[in-house]
């Protein structure tokens, strides 16, 4: 299908250059169970080994036709690297993402990010996995991501405490967010230097179902902008949850493209943003890709509806939930490629 490789397609799209057809890709996890099974291991084992991480990503893309690979899969790498233990749930048969059961820091003042964080915990796996993917699948663009400072704060300390401190100890929260902003800038630059092709800043903990748009503007937006300014292109900004009240502020953060989930009204967002902003989303990552009662026809309709609403690329609204229904997932990707031959608002066609 098409004249471009997935890598050319995605990188051209991110520069708003004409492409052959719309890509199906993401800034967040795209690993699915059939890909993991190909590698011959369990979900819990793809987080701790560079080769398994790389190969499960590649197989997921190849089997499904995704236009990218994205690593890593879990949100605990940085918190682990500063000295927290993680739970991997190696004995569970279910798909359980790694978590941090206890946090060593109790107060915001204690937080201190080691200069050599890239050499700690599982972070050194990432450059290795990138290298493997480049060799094994040069046709696929590699996406990496960093959590935004607020969400990352909730991985380093108790989120409850930080949420309350937003009002009660604003100054301390700002200092904490600044420290994490510096860390995120450095880690992003390091991932780019290690060879990732695009990077996504994802800040799910600040959607308007958690924080007020006013707090977003005061506390979050300046820091997201500082991070994105420090990274080179291509760079994306993703927020999941209720983003309708945030979308114009998101567009002021200097990302090359914005990505949102199913709670966003894409049609309205497109109106607010105009045709020039790269806007991507917003596949329902449970109802459409995982729910066994959803039919292939419904999956196809969902994708057409998203494209008609005015996206420039179809993207899952969050990490793909790995236990996909094979036919429905495949239908989502194929429909994007077939139905996406017409130009989208911000990107023309060859």
């Amino acid at each position, binding site marked *: 299908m098409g004249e471009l490789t997935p890598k050319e397609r995605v990188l051209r799209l991110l520069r708003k250059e004409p492409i052959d057809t719309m890509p199906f890709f993401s800034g967040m996890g795209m690993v699915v169970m059939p890909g993991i099974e190909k590698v011959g291991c369990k979900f819990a084992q793809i987080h701790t080994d560079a080769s398994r991480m790389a190969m499960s990503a590649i197989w997921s893309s190849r089997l499904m036709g995704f236009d990218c690979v994205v690593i890593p899969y879990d949100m605990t790498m940085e918190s682990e690297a500063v000295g927290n233990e993680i*739970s991997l*749930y190696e004995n*569970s048969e*279910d*798909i*359980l*993402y790694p*978590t*941090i*059961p206890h946090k060593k820091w109790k107060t915001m003042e204690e937080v201190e990010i080691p200069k050599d964080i890239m050499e700690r915990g599982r972070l050194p796996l990432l450059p290795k996995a990138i290298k493997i993917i480049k060799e094994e699948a040069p046709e696929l663009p590699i996406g990496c991501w960093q959590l935004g400072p607020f969400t990352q704060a909730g991985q380093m300390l108790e*989120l*409850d405490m930080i*949420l*309350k401190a*937003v*009002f*009660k100890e604003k100054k301390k929260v700002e200092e904490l967010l600044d420290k994490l902003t510096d860390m995120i800038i450095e880690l992003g630059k390091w991932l780019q230097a290690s060879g990732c092709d695009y990077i996504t800043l994802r800040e799910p903990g600040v959607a*308007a*179902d*958690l*924080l*007020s748009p006013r*707090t977003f503007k005061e506390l979050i937006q300046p820091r997201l902008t500082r991070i994105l300014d420090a990274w080179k292109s291509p760079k994306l900004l993703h927020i999941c949850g209720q983003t309708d009240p945030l979308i114009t502020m998101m567009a002021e953060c200097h990302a090359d493209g914005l990505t949102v989930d199913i709670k966003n009204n894409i049609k309205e967002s497109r109106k607010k943003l105009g045709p020039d902003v790269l806007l991507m989303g917003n596949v329902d990552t*449970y109802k459409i890709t*995982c729910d066994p009662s959803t039919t292939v026809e419904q999956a196809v309709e969902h994708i057409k509806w998203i494209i008609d609403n005015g996206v420039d690329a179809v993207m899952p609204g969050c990490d793909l*939930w790995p*236990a996909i229904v094979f036919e429905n997932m495949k239908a989502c990707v194929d429909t994007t490629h077939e139905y996406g031959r017409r130009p989208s608002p911000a990107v023309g066609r060859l």
Partner: protein
Amino acid sequence: MTTKEELLKQLKEGVINYNEEQVKEAASKAIELGYPALEMIMDGLAAGMEVVGELYERNEYFVPEVLMCADALYAGLDILRPHVPKQESGVVAQVVIGSVQGDVHDIGKNLVKMMFDVAGWQVHDLGRDVPLEKFVEEQLRTDAEVVAMSAMMTTTMLGMKKVIKMIKEKNPNVAIMLGGAPVTKDVAKLFGADGYAESAGNAVQEAIKMIARLREMQQTKAAN
């Protein structure tokens, strides 16, 4: 002398404006003056939380505000609760609550827990990322009438089904209630749960209804 009405108002507004100090002062004053503690809890603290719930629904309050209001409420509860006479409080019932294994989302669960606390239940909070067997063990240990589970993710939600099966095998008289964003009334029913509530606001009422239903069923069974 401060009237009861004035103190009720201070408690209520203290919760709404997340003013912990005001709530503590008013609660201590109420005890000093011998006003009924249960009434202060229900018509003061709980009434305030009800307004907070409305402000949240209307997007005037967001999660940080609600959490601060909850702190103010607990500050008052800690002072008033020991003064509620045993027979009056009639400790409504016991509930075991937690977020299921693999799930560290607990903000919603904590709000539900607070509602049970306010309503005078004895709450056994297992926290988050709770191993599935732990729910069963804790229920057996405490003989709680209700087990309430929270899940925010589609897969962790599946763990609930296993817990329901394990508990019902050992003890069919326990009422099990589910909640969390991916859970719906249909899912709860499909998993074999006895109840479901969409938000913290109606969790307690639903729990009481559930127990009543189960008792009724037992009685008809016993009669036959």
